[in-house]
Each structure stands twice: as structure tokens, then as C-alpha cells.
């Protein structure tokens, strides 16, 4: 650790704990508390990466999270901020984008041809011949700048954990510098709960490297934060975004158990206190390793006890530059020259390629050195304020953009450097006053929320009322406007965009800031514009001969800091709905079918055998996902009449009816059966996927069009396990487990409903319906007893050949019978007539959903029709989605459903056809997926098995 200084009073490294880690394969030592960059810098490492375009060597610039030259790969994690991430024992750190090595990088040859690669050069060449562009593209891709993500095969899930947390602070303070800490303490003292979020590893902001003058003040502020009741501090955490109604996202890093955590806060007040970001200076060679900001010097010296160089030249325009000079002198760096920008001093050029060798001053003098320090001004990170609606304006006197607090909504306040300057006492006083106002406003928000919640528990506001003391104004210190020397240099270090590039872009017509940025890609890189935006605007202003104010600022978009996809995603949380019988299906080798929210048994190994069992004996299917709505009230028939196409006024108790719903545009929405269980009690079923939609559809009619109707809807889909027992022997089987219902066909005919006890389970609902086309009973059993009833049925039906069948067998059975599936045999344009449902549409009813459209459709003849098709070759099964080709070669329809029928031993097909083709007996041509054509004949009806329905009624 050749560059490690003796112990510094404010250092954050623990010299008692030495760690080792590797950098590009070599082992390096570090102290606990070191960042990757500080540990390497302490060992004399000066180059950490190569730049994007020209592959110039890059060293430390800001020595903070924002350092653009210090993005590294740690293990399988790309783009780690090496100047922020703390060293952990055994960490494997590599440089990114270098080939063959960091020291010798072949692509650095680009520097030599840089004059031929101006901004946007790629728009001007590689245009032809077109076939060569993919080759050019591969070359350009080699320059993609970043780390590597792991392969799926080597990715270890257990090493990548992320989680999320919800918090509800009264006051959220973004930034833990002196003003932020003071605001948190004052808000807490006023009775507010406070979340204090600090980006660095410790609270303190710029006081951390402020030296003797502020050390005791920092200790005191930290002590007050620690002892104040109700303050939670998150360090190494950043507020990412402020959304509507103070919905605030925070990323929490550096946690022991998870890689990152997303904290989501509904903050009653938000105090924005991010401080200031030091701005780089643009001049020739400003990216040579050894050129760094004054804050970088102070971080390295004060926090990490690392000597930034041996011989320094400082360009200072402010007291922080002077303080950096002092810090360098204090630790024995030879400060060869201080150029005071306040008195017209300037530096114009750095000499050296992979390290600073000398610097040329504004007056032409050349000074040998290995370290150039600039302190040329500050950028206020106003992005959270702009997300809250403020429009920052340029303040030429302070040489920075500032947000006007008056533009902010009541629940957002700002304090600290983002508002103004001032002494430490002034900053703390401003913070305290702001914290008190934030607490008062939070209390008011809380009272407003409670008042607006008629059903919420009313309680007296626990918050202490405080006086309405608007924060005092903070003074704004004058600062010279320093953006660029008379030479050109790098503006965007991540993107390798120079000031000359920006000038070129403007000259080519890309005059507005947004266009120039897009053309050059300035501000588009991982630093997100935090270092370079103001310089970019200043240089565009200079090039367009406008003022900075006229050139304007640009939109700041969330997130304020980069955040992992893992944290945003949080733990996996995709719920799966499982029927109470699913464990039985799993145990019986059912092939699972992901059906929307549900997992269902597709088949148990032999769908054709399952079909035959139903046609010949008896089968059982778990139909629990079918949507079920309990409808209660005297006006249920009116509701049914309104939402279904057919007539419902005269449905008798104990009867079941099939119904189809259309939307107001006449397009088929859902279908199902509804039973009348009692005088004013009905049970409606819907398709599985339509359950939620139909419930909302009914509520919509009731609440918006007919609030006077007395109907209460309760969703009971998961209250019941639903089992369909189908097949010619189903009555025989059901009779064995049901005692209190007369199953005689005359007593319990087709399309009727009964309630009774099944296998000892009371309060079951039994329907006689038949999607499969067979005699069948659908049993709705209280869910907790579902498995018992299922197993009882199978046990009782052993000698009848009872077996379970899955969704695939059901699809075949219904297709043989010609029953449509909404959404498969219909599409987003299918009105009732296109689904073979003309007969259901009762236009003599005064009103029902979609009525006018269906009345108009009824007057037309040219709408598409749903038909059955019989392929000429019975062994041919055209894949669902195959197109029917009209005589003119155009598309005349499509196959919506098709299967080989085990019952008929031939294919069964449903198709949507243009009206002109949809006549029974006419022949159509189907284009098969392999390009061949087959013919088929339109059948008379949709049903191929038992078209008369004798089996159903048996």
C-alpha cells in the first residue's frame, strides 16, 4: 500500500482488519471500509478502465459512486461502481472492456483515427452495400461498453437475492448531509416518523471530509439523529424516484442478506436534501488518469487515507478547491502550483497519455505534475424536484441550475445545497425549519386522509402541532461560470463525448439540447448526466450563441440512481391457483396445464382413452376453475335478462339454462349456465378465464345503470370444488354416493339443478348439464371436502370403469359435440351470429347488452360464420390456426378447433368462414402448415357426435 497515508483523523478504514481481493487476477490487500478503488489506489493503481469510444485509459475522477472511470466487474456482477463498492474478502474484480489487457488495449488504436470518427460518424457511413452492414454491426458491437452478465447455466439463484419493503413514514428525507440530518431531527422532534436516506456509507455529507472545523458539529448531528425517537436511517441507499402523491422509491444497497432491496414509501412529506455534485471542467486531456475533482482528493485523503499523487496543480474557483489544496499539503503532496480561477487563472491542457505528466496553464506556462485537481463549480441534483413538478432555472450568479421551491407541491420541500449555500449554521437552521414544516404538513396530510376515510377508525392526530415557520432563505454564493477552457476536452466521460463533438452536432443542425444530446449520446451513459448535463448545456449554448437560460435544461427521468432488475422485481411472486384436487392429479401423473391463473390436469397419459371412457362408461373431470357467482335478490331475473342474449324471466326454481353474454358492441364475451336454486337465489357459472370479467361486468350494470335493482353478487368460484361426472353410466355412479336426491330422469331431467348430500357432504349443488355431450352431473362440493368426494366417486365407480379425464379429453369431447369455446372459436370481432348463436338472440327483449349491434347484424347476411368441417381425407387434422383459402387465393377463414376424434375415428374441425363459403355441403380448401392443400366439406351442424342430443337427455 505504497500510497496509503498515515492514520487520518476522519478515515473510515479499519486498519485492524486487512482483507485480500483480486484485481485482474492479481491479489491486493485492503482494509475493511476500503472501496475497491481506494484499496487499489492505495497500492498505486491509477488506471481502472478504458473509455467507450477511444479506449483511452481512465483513472479516478470523482472517487464516488458517480466515478465514470471506475466501472468494474465483480464476479458475475457487471458495471459495479468500484469507487463506491466496499471490498469484501476474496472478491474477484476485473476491468471491463479491455482486450487483451487493461494496460495494452488494442482498441486504443481508435484514438489515432479519432478525427475520422466525429459525433454521429456512423450515420454517415456503412450504408452500402446493404449485405455488409451485419459485418459492420458486429464490429460496432465490439465497442459495447460494459460488463458481462452470467450465462443461465452458471447463474446461481441463491447468490442473487432481492427483496422489497413497504414503509409509511410521515417524513422522508432524501440526503443525510447536515441539512438533511437537521431536517430529520426537527421533524422527529415535532412528532413525525422519519425515514432518512443517505447515498454514502455514512451520514454527514460534505462534513465527512470537512476536517477540524466541522468534526464536532458532525459528531453532534449524528448523535442527535441517533437519539431522536422515530428516525430510521438507511445508508448506502438512494431515493430513486418521486411519483404522484409522494410515492417514493428507494434502493437499499450493501445489505448482508440480500443484494439489493427496493423500499417503497408513501411519504406524507418529502424533504429533498441531496447536496451538490461537483462538476468536472472541460479542457484538453481532462480525462487523463491523474486529473480529478477537489472532492475526489478530499475523499481519498480524509476518508481512505490515500495519497492521490505526488506533485499537484490545482485549479480552484471556490473554497473547496482551496481546502483540497490544504489537504494535499497537509499529507505531503507537493502542490506545485495553484491556479486561481477567481482571478482569471485557467488550465488549458494536460500532457501525458496514460498518466498526467504536466499541465499547461492559461498563460502558456507548463508545470510538471502527476495530479491535476479542479474545483470549478457545482451542479444541483434537482431531479427529484423536477419529478415533483419544479422547472429548474439557471442562476448565472451561482453558475448552476436551481429549483424554485415555490413551484413544488405542498408535500415536497427542499433544503441544503440544492436550495442555496451558507455557513454550516445556516444550513442546519434551514434544515431544521424545513423539517418542522415537513412534519406539520405531514400531520395535515394524515388528518386529510383520515377525514376522507369514512370507514376508517377515527383517531385523534398524535402529531404535535408546530408553528407555521416557513424556512428562512439560504444565501446563494456567487461563483464564476466555468465550463470549458479554450481547448476542447471530454464532456461526457462515460460516452467519450467531447465538447468538439457537441459543437459539430450544433453545426450540423442538431441545435436544440435534446437533439444534440441524442446525436452525440451525451448524458446517455451510466452516470445519467449527473456530472455532465450542465457542461453539455453550456457548450451547446456557446455553440448556438444563446444563453444557458435560453438553451434550457433537460428532463430528468427516474430512476435517480441505477437500480438492479432484481430489486425492482423483488422476490418471485406469481401466485398459482390450485384446485383442492390438484394434489390428487399430481399424484396420478397428470400432465400439468398452465391455464391462466390455474394449474390444471391436461391429461393422465392417454387422452384418447379418457375420451372413450366418457363415451362408453363414466369419467370424472375436475372443473373447479369454472367461474361461479352466487346471485341473490328479487331483481336477479332482470339482471340475467340484461346480460344474457336469451330470456330468463320464466326460469323456474330447479331449472338450469345456458346463456351467452355479449359486450355492447355485440361481440361474444362469455358463456355458461345459470341455475335457479331458490325463489331469489341463483348460481351462475362462467368460463374459467372469464370469471373475474363477468363479475365486474355484472357489477358495472348494477352500479352504473341500475343502482335501484336489488341484487347481491358473491363470487364463490373457490368456495366449491367442482367435479363433472360424465358418461352413459354417470347416473349409476352418482346414485351410489347420493342418497337424498331422486336421480330418476323424470324427477331430475336434463338442465335441472338439485341440492343434496354427496358422499356424506351436505350442501352440494348437482346440475344435469353436458358440455361433453354425454349424460352428466356437475357436482359443486364445499371446497374442503372436494378431494373426499372425488376419491369416493372413483372408489364407488371402480367396477364401472370410472376414471379421471383431463382438459384435453374434455376439449375433444366438446368438439365432437360441436360446443364452442369463447375466445377460441370466436375472436375479438365475433358477434353472436358469427358463433352460431343466432337462435339465442331474443330481439323481442327490449334491452340487453349489445342489442342494437345484434339487431343490425341480424339484418345483414355477410358476417363470418362458425361451421363444422369434414375433411375429405378423414385422417387429416388441420392444425388450429390453419387458413381456409378462397377461390381467388385470398383468405376465406380459419380453423378454430381441430382434433382427431377417438369416437368417430376421423378428424373433427370447427372453422370461422366468410359467409360466402359457409354453406352446408360446400367444399373449401385448407392450406396446411406444410404448404400442402386439403379439401373439406362444410357440415350441416356443428355437432359430429349425437347431433340430436339423445345421449344428453337420456
Amino acid at each position, binding site marked *: 500500500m505504497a500510497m496509503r497515508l498515515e492514520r487520518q483523523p476522519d478515515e473510515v478504514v479499519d486498519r485492524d482488519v486487512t482483507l485480500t481481493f483480486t484485481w485482474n487476477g492479481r491479489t491486493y490487500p485492503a482494509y475493511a471500509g476500503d472501496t475497491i478503488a481506494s484499496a487499489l489506489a492505495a497500492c498505486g493503481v491509477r488506471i481502472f478502465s478504458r473509455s467507450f469510444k477511444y479506449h483511452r485509459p481512465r483513472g479516478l475522477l470523482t472517487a464516488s459512486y458517480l466515478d465514470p472511470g471506475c466501472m468494474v466487474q465483480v464476479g458475475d456482477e457487471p458495471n459495479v461502481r468500484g469507487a463506491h463498492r466496499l471490498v469484501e474478502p476474496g472478491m474477484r474484480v476485473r476491468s471491463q472492456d479491455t482486450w487483451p489487457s487493461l494496460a495494452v488495449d488494442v482498441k486504443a488504436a481508435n484514438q489515432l483515427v479519432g478525427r475520422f470518427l466525429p459525433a454521429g460518424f456512423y450515420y454517415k457511413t456503412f450504408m452500402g452495400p446493404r449485405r455488409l452492414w451485419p459485418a459492420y454491426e458486429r464490429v460496432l458491437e465490439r465497442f459495447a461498453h460494459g460488463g458481462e452478465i452470467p450465462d443461465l447455466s452458471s447463474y446461481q439463484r441463491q447468490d442473487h437475492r432481492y427483496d422489497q419493503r413497504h414503509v409509511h413514514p410521515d417524513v422522508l428525507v432524501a440526503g443525510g448531509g447536515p441539512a438533511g440530518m437537521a431536517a430529520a431531527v426537527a421533524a422527529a422532534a415535532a412528532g413525525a416518523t422519519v425515514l432518512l436516506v443517505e447515498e454514502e456509507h455514512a451520514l454527514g455529507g460534505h462534513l465527512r471530509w470537512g476536517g477540524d472545523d466541522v468534526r464536532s458539529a458532525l459528531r453532534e448531528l449524528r448523535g442527535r439523529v441517533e437519539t431522536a425517537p422515530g428516525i430510521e436511517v438507511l445508508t448506502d441507499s438512494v431515493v430513486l424516484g418521486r411519483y404522484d402523491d409522494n410515492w417514493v422509491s428507494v434502493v437499499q444497497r450493501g445489505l448482508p442478506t440480500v443484494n439489493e432491496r427496493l423500499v417503497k414509501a408513501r411519504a406524507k412529506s418529502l424533504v429533498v436534501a441531496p447536496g451538490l455534485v461537483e462538476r468536472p471542467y472541460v479542457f484538453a486531456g481532462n480525462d487523463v488518469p491523474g486529473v480529478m475533482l477537489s472532492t475526489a482528493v478530499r475523499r481519498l485523503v480524509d476518508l481512505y487515507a490515500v495519497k492521490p499523487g505526488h506533485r499537484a496543480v490545482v485549479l480552484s474557483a471556490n473554497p473547496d478547491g482551496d481546502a483540497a489544496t490544504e489537504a494535499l499539503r497537509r499529507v505531503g503532496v507537493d502542490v506545485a502550483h495553484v491556479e486561481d480561477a477567481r482571478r482569471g487563472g485557467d488550465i488549458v491542457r494536460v500532457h501525458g497519455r496514460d498518466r498526467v505528466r504536466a499541465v499547461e496553464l492559461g498563460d502558456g506556462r507548463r508545470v510538471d505534475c502527476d495530479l491535476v485537481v479542479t474545483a470549478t463549480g457545482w451542479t444541483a441534483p434537482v431531479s427529484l424536484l423536477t419529478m415533483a413538478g419544479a422547472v429548474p432555472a439557471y442562476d448565472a450568479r451561482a453558475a448552476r441550475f436551481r429549483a424554485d421551491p415555490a413551484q413544488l407541491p405542498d408535500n415536497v420541500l427542499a433544503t441544503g445545497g440544492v436550495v442555496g449555500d451558507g455557513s454550516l449554521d445556516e444550513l442546519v437552521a434551514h434544515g431544521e425549519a424545513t423539517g418542522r414544516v415537513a412534519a406539520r404538513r405531514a400531520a395535515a396530510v394524515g388528518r386529510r386522509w383520515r377525514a376522507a*376515510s369514512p370507514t376508517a377508525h377515527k383517531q385523534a392526530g398524535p402529531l404535535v402541532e408546530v408553528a407555521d415557520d416557513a424556512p428562512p432563505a439560504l444565501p446563494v454564493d456567487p461563483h464564476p461560470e466555468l465550463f470549458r477552457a479554450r481547448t476542447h476536452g471530454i464532456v461526457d466521460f462515460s460516452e467519450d463525448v467531447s465538447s468538439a463533438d457537441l459543437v459539430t452536432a450544433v453545426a450540423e443542425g442538431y441545435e436544440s439540447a435534446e437533439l444534440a444530446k441524442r446525436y452525440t449520446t451525451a448524458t446517455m451513459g451510466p452516470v445519467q448526466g449527473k456530472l455532465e448535463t450542465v457542461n453539455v448545456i453550456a457548450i451547446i449554448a456557446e455553440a448556438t450563441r444563446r444563453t444557458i437560460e435560453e438553451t434550457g435544461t433537460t428532463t430528468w427521468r427516474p430512476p435517480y440512481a441505477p437500480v438492479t432488475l432484481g430489486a425492482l422485481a423483488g422476490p418471485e411472486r406469481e401466485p398459482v391457483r390450485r384446485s383442492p384436487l390438484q394434489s390428487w392429479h399430481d399424484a396420478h401423473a397428470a400432465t400439468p396445464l398452465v391455464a391462466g391463473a390455474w394449474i390444471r390436469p391436461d391429461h393422465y397419459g392417454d387422452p384418447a382413452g379418457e375420451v372413450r371412457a366418457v363415451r362408453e362408461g363414466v369419467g370424472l373431470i375436475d372443473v373447479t376453475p369454472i367461474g361461479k357467482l352466487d346471485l341473490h335478490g328479487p331483481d336477479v331475473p332482470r339482471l340475467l335478462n340484461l346480460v344474457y342474449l336469451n330470456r330468463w324471466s320464466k326460469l323456474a326454481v330447479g331449472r338450469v339454462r345456458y346463456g351467452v353474454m355479449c359486450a*355492447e358492441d355485440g361481440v361474444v364475451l362469455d358463456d355458461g349456465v345459470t341455475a335457479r336454486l331458490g325463489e331469489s337465489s341463483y348460481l351462475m357459472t362462467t368460463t374459467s378465464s372469464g370469471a373475474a370479467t363477468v363479475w365486474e361486468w355484472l357489477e358495472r350494470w348494477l352500479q352504473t345503470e341500475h343502482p335501484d335493482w336489488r341484487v347481491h353478487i358473491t363470487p364463490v368460484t373457490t368456495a366449491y370444488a367442482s367435479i363433472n361426472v360424465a358418461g352413459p353410466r354417470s347416473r349409476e355412479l352418482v346414485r351410489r354416493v347420493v342418497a337424498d336426491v331422486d336421480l330418476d330422469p323424470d324427477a331430475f331431467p336434463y338442465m335441472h339443478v338439485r341440492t343434496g348430500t354427496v358422499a356424506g357432504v351436505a350442501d352440494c349443488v348437482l346440475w344435469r348439464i353436458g358440455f361433453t355431450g354425454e349424460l352428466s352431473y356437475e357436482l359443486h362440493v364445499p371446497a374442503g371436502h372436494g378431494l373426499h368426494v372425488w376419491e369416493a366417486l372413483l372408489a364407488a365407480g371402480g367396477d364401472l370403469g370410472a376414471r379421471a379425464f383431463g382438459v384435453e379429453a374434455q376439449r375433444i369431447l366438446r368438439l365432437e359435440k360441436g360446443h364452442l369455446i369463447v375466445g377460441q372459436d370466436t375472436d375479438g370481432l365475433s358477434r353472436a351470429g358469427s358463433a352460431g348463436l343466432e337462435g339465442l338472440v331474443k330481439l323481442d327483449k327490449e334491452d340487453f347488452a349489445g*342489442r342494437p349491434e345484434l339487431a343490425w347484424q341480424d339484418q345483414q347476411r355477410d358476417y363470418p360464420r362458425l361451421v363444422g368441417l369434414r375433411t375429405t381425407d378423414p385422417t387429416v387434422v388441420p392444425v388450429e390456426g390453419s387458413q381456409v383459402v378462397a377461390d381467388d387465393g385470398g383468405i376465406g377463414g380459419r380453423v378454430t378447433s381441430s382434433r382427431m376424434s377417438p369416437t368417430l375415428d376421423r378428424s373433427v374441425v370447427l372453422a370461422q368462414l366468410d359467409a360466402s363459403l359457409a354453406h352446408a355441403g360446400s367444399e373449401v380448401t385448407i392450406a396446411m402448415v406444410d404448404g400442402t392443400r386439403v379439401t373439406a366439406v362444410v357440415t350441416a351442424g356443428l355437432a359430429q357426435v349425437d347431433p340430436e342430443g339423445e345421449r344428453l337427455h337420456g
Partner: protein
Amino acid sequence: MMLIPCPWCGPRDAAEFAYLGEPAPRPDPTAASPEQWRGYLYLRHNVAGPGTERWYHRMGCRRHLLVERDTTTNEVRPHRSHVGDES
């Protein structure tokens, strides 16, 4: 996400609600001309600024409600009337 003032549950995150948009009065289904009916189906004012809209508290009380929202800022205010008696 913004807060929606549910008259029954108080201010709740908009993610709990389904957006049903600008209410469109339903023409008389027996008398409406195709133009009127399809206006009801497809035409909305699409205002840029404050407008009345209907939301449904899907993950809460399951009631339909009216709010006034400025579509340029997403600022939401409770509406003076309840669904069903807008007129």
C-alpha cells in the same frame, strides 16, 4: 402510483382500482341510430386537463366511483356525485 379517493375506503393507491374512463351515457337501445350507438361505443372526449372519470375499486370495496382527474398532471379530486346519480 397516485391515490384515488374512494368514498368508502378513503385515499387508496390507484393500483387497487380498475380504470373505466370517461362515462358515456348509454343511448336508448331500442331507438339509437348506428351513429349514436357507435358514438357511445367508440367516441370519447379524450380531454387534456380536468375531466370526470369512473373507476372501480377492484381490490377494495368493489364499488364504482367517480373522480375528477387532470389528465395532464394526474391530480385527482373526489367527484361531487356518486355513480348512478351523475345527472
